[in-house]
């Protein structure tokens, strides 16, 4: 059985007895996972490749629904309401729970239009409002000073690290309550990585953050809580300081100590 420490925080998302099966698979890729996601904190999901951490993250905004035949079991509660229900308004859910991907996903349009995209989807048409919100989001994404003179250049003209910050700006422009990061720095150089990490730390005043990372130092640097997963199961969840210094489970100890992974 997994060790899930009780936490004394306001809970934003609660994963309860959650299992997940990919289309065409005979077995569940996630098995009976339960953990809380604390509000305005950074929760890191760590574990070796194939442990299900990305699968879990992608369940939180139900992006798996883009592909037919994937199945959810159990509950993921967001404000007391199970988001796995059939009639869940996915568009509304995804506005409230944003996502940043492993590789930067700048759209083939200008820097400005990228950030304005989510706002326009919500029907914001007024140019002044858009200008203000785009500038705010770019400042929030720590990119404004670098691009303020070329907002209408193609987003492709930005470096990889800048594109990733652009994606973060695009995600925060719609003011989500939760942001999901799927290994956001694995494709970036060390300097861009540091920029993204300090950005994540500064964002948690406003949003709840869940981050999947392969990099244990990164989890230690930026997260408040850590969940260690292995073979589709949650092994241990608790405060990051405790998981990395004094974990209860032997498997966690071995993984943290570099015995496998």
């Amino acid at each position, binding site marked *: 059985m997994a060790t899930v420490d009780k936490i004394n925080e306001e809970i934003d998302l609660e994963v309860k007895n959650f299992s997940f099966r990919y289309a065409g698979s005979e077995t569940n890729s996630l098995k009976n996972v339960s953990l809380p996601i604390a509000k305005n904190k950074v929760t890191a999901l760590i574990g070796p490749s194939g442990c299900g951490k990305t699968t879990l993250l992608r369940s939180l905004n139900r992006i798996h629904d883009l592909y037919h035949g994937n199945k959810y079991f159990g509950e993921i509660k967001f404000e007391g309401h199970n988001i796995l229900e059939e009639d869940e308004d996915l568009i509304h859910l995804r506005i409230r729970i944003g*996502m940043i991907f492993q590789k930067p996903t700048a759209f083939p349009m*200008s820097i400005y239009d990228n950030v304005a995209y989510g706002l326009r989807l919500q029907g914001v048409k007024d140019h002044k409002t858009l200008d203000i919100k785009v500038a705010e989001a770019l400042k929030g994404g720590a990119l404004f000073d670098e691009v303020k003179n070329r907002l209408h*250049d*193609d987003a492709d003209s930005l470096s990889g690290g800048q594109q990733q910050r652009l994606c973060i700006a695009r995600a925060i422009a719609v003011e989500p309550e939760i942001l999901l990061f799927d290994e956001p720095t694995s494709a970036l150089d060390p300097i861009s990585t540091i920029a993204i990490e300090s950005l994540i730390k500064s964002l948690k005043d406003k949003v709840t953050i869940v981050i999947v990372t392969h990099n244990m130092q990164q989890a230690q640097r930026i997260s408040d809580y850590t969940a260690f997963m292995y073979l589709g199961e949650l092994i241990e969840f608790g405060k990051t300081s405790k998981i990395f210094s004094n974990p209860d489970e032997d498997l966690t100890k071995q993984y943290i100590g570099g015995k496998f992974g």
Partner: protein
Amino acid sequence: MTASTKRKIINKFILSLSTLFAIIGVAFLFWILFILLKNGLSALSLNMFIEDGAPPGSDGGLRHAMVGQLILAIGATLVGVPIGILAGTFVREYGKKSPFADLIRDLSDIMMSAPSIVIGTFVYALLVAPTGGFSGYAGITALAIMMVPIILRTTDDMLGLVPNSLREAAIALGAPKYKMIKDVVYRGAKVGILTGILLGIARVAGETAPLLFTSFNSNFFETDLAEPIASLTVTMFNYATSPYEDWQSLGWGAALVLAGFVLGLNILGRIWLSLNHITRKKILKKRKR
């Protein structure tokens, strides 16, 4: 002889051989262009562009055929492009790997290699025989049928080049699927899809067989689609096989104009494709003002 010099000689030999055959391959294109220019240029005159068809010996032109050809090509494009793009979108974005989508893909490949005269016969049976007359509508239908599979497959392939991560990113921002396709996927595949359209137009613009039984031909200036309409291809065939020297010369002129049109379309498409990346930034900047 050492192994190394032997290898170098073989290398040189294969290189020269493949270069030679590459040149032979292109030589035919230039040969065709040369013959066309040699015979066609002498037929080119202002008369050819402003006069309509006339009996042999009375100094006619090809205006009727050029206008007819344009009407047929534009009509086929207006019908074929939306069907092709939407069908390609269905196959790639909605059907994906389902048996139904695969069936459409296979059928479309078969359609692409279907003899064009068979398509002409089909439209004849469908539109010409029941209505009792050749018409521009029938010609447009036949050309559009030929165009759809080309555009369907290029759209399918080009949408396939847009990474899934972009689709996921749009969905994750709360975009409904149709907006994700319209705003992000089409934009990413824009250049490829437009190239497909140009190639599709170029392909049907050179067709004769599907027009023989459908729009037939006319020696008069005609813009009414309910009537038979002239085309450069059928006119070319009629004039070139006629016994009159001035008609034969006009036939060469028609061939040159048609080749110029198709070649020009291809070259334009390619230039546009290569310039696109450079000019895009400028266009975006302008849009801001």
